């Protein structure tokens, strides 16, 4: 039968407004289609595995859709046409179809960077430092579970975000570690690797954690988490990510030079001194990309460095470019790109931002970016 009766739903009151159309980017479409295949298969094994998609956000925020890996902004696009959602009829499957809902919008999904920057603001007064156990009772609290449901980021991005921001989870509460204390712990770890003659490719975690707890009163929960941030732990063995440790120690030194530049040579000397003989050769400035500014010397002066962390820059692209161009009138492409990493999903997005907010100039030294408008005066 090729002619069908088109009827309204048998329960219009209940159905109206209960459908939404989501425009699926290819990778999301793939996840959904493969997920449904999996569930179909898993039903036979009688296990319930629900592929995880979540819509997250406070009622006052723009909603995002999260897969286990990625975050998408949800935007409503109004249609001038009506789209009818039509399904078969239960009572007369061969001759009737029902209009379940009439829609005038579709929801567009656009990949975005996870909104993790809120974390540092929310956790401002909750820093974990050496010997602040007494302070704990009076401290404001923000729990891991609460953050997980409130922060607009996928599961993977959220745990990576905690790791990158050096946030400890202590008794279910989030506590960013004090930078100086973190440097101390890392220095201790490097020292003990040598004095206990452990290989940094496979160090016994238990041994390190015990010695830190016994001799320096660093809680096991803290050192365990610090160790897991800087490398992989497998079967109780720590494969240290040397570059990450060296970078963190470098930032620890540079952090004090936000407003008073340090000469490059002096900085490198200090840095090498801290990391010790074993890792001296791995010290290189590129490890700190996105966290420092290199001030080229005028004749007779030394090249100096200042601490300039991209994490402290505004998240809004326009505001960030204002700040970047106020700091420096023009930027090399290789330099500015490090300061845009955390606000663009990929290099294509980053170039779009550059195109929109900056003007490119090419001279003998390569491509320079300057401000589109003049901010000074």
């Amino acid at each position, binding site marked *: *039968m*090729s*002619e*069908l*009766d*088109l*009827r*309204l*739903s*048998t*329960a*219009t*009151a*209940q159905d109206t407004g*209960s*459908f*939404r*159309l*989501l*425009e*699926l*980017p*290819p990778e*999301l*479409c793939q996840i*959904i*289609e493969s*997920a*449904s295949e999996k*569930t*179909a298969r898993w039903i036979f094994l009688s296990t319930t595995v*629900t*592929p995880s*998609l*979540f*819509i*997250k*956000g*406070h009622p006052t925020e723009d909603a995002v*859709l999260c897969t286990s890996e990625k975050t998408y902004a949800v935007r409503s696009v109004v249609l*001038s*046409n*009506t*789209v*009818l*959602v*039509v*399904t*078969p*009829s*239960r009572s007369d*499957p*061969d*001759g009737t*179809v029902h*209009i379940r809902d*009439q829609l*005038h919008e*579709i929801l567009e999904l656009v990949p975005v960077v996870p909104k993790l920057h809120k974390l540092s603001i929310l956790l401002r007064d909750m820093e974990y430092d050496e010997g602040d156990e007494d302070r704990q009772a009076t401290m404001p609290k923000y729990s891991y579970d609460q953050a997980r*449901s409130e922060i607009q980021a996928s599961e993977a991005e959220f745990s990576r975000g905690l790791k990158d921001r050096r946030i400890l989870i202590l008794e279910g509460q989030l506590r960013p570690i004090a930078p100086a204390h973190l440097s101390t712990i890392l220095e201790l770890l490097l020292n003990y690797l040598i004095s206990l003659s452990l290989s940094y490719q496979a160090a016994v975690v238990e041994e390190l954690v015990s010695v830190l707890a016994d001799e320096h009163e660093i809680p096991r929960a803290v050192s365990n988490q610090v160790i897991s941030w800087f490398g992989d732990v497998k079967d109780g063995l720590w494969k240290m990510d040397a570059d990450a440790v060296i970078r963190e120690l470098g930032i620890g030194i540079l952090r004090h030079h936000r407003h008073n530049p340090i000469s490059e040579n002096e900085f490198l000397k200090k840095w090498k001194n801290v990391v010790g003989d074993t890792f001296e050769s791995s010290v290189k400035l590129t490890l700190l990309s996105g966290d420092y500014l290199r001030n080229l010397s005028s004749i007779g002066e030394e090249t100096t460095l200042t601490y300039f962390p991209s994490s402290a820059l505004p998240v809004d692209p326009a505001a960030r470019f204002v700040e970047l161009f106020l700091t420096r009138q023009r930027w090399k492409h290789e330099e500015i790109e490090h300061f845009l990493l955390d606000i663009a999903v990929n290099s294509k997005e980053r170039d779009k931002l550059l195109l929109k907010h900056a003007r490119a100039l090419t001279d003998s030294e390569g491509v320079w970016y300057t401000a589109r408008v003049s901010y000074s005066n």
Partner: protein
Amino acid sequence: MVIDVSISLSNTFNPKFPSCVAKLGHDELVLIELQGTLDIECDEDTTRDGQFVGKLNLKDANKPTLIIGHHLLEGKIVTLPKPLGVAHRKESSKRHDFPGDGDSSRSVEDTLSSSVSWGIVAVVKKKIVFSKRPMPIVNLGGSTQRGKV
């Protein structure tokens, strides 16, 4: 607030479409796009349920037609530029397992967030679009509905 979006692409709407609709790519759900809106004259909400709207004819896959009242619409089948996921709100009463004697502000919030759950019930890649002006037809039994375009 977290809203769960589950994925259950198969067997949501139990009976399947007859083959003439199913060959559009999805056997349980189809999207029909109309210019303008369907305007249905009804006194009470309940009389809308199951209300007859029109006749959909898909004999010729290249030329689907829809007859609403005295109007004939001719349409075409269009492949969507990007697949659309169809999300359906579920009336869930399953997550009320928190203790009832807890503080009321919390439980209200919990009920609100847990009562909304969405499921992606279909991924649709084609739609039927009726974009032309309706043609008036004669010699057909009258009906109370009118498609205003």
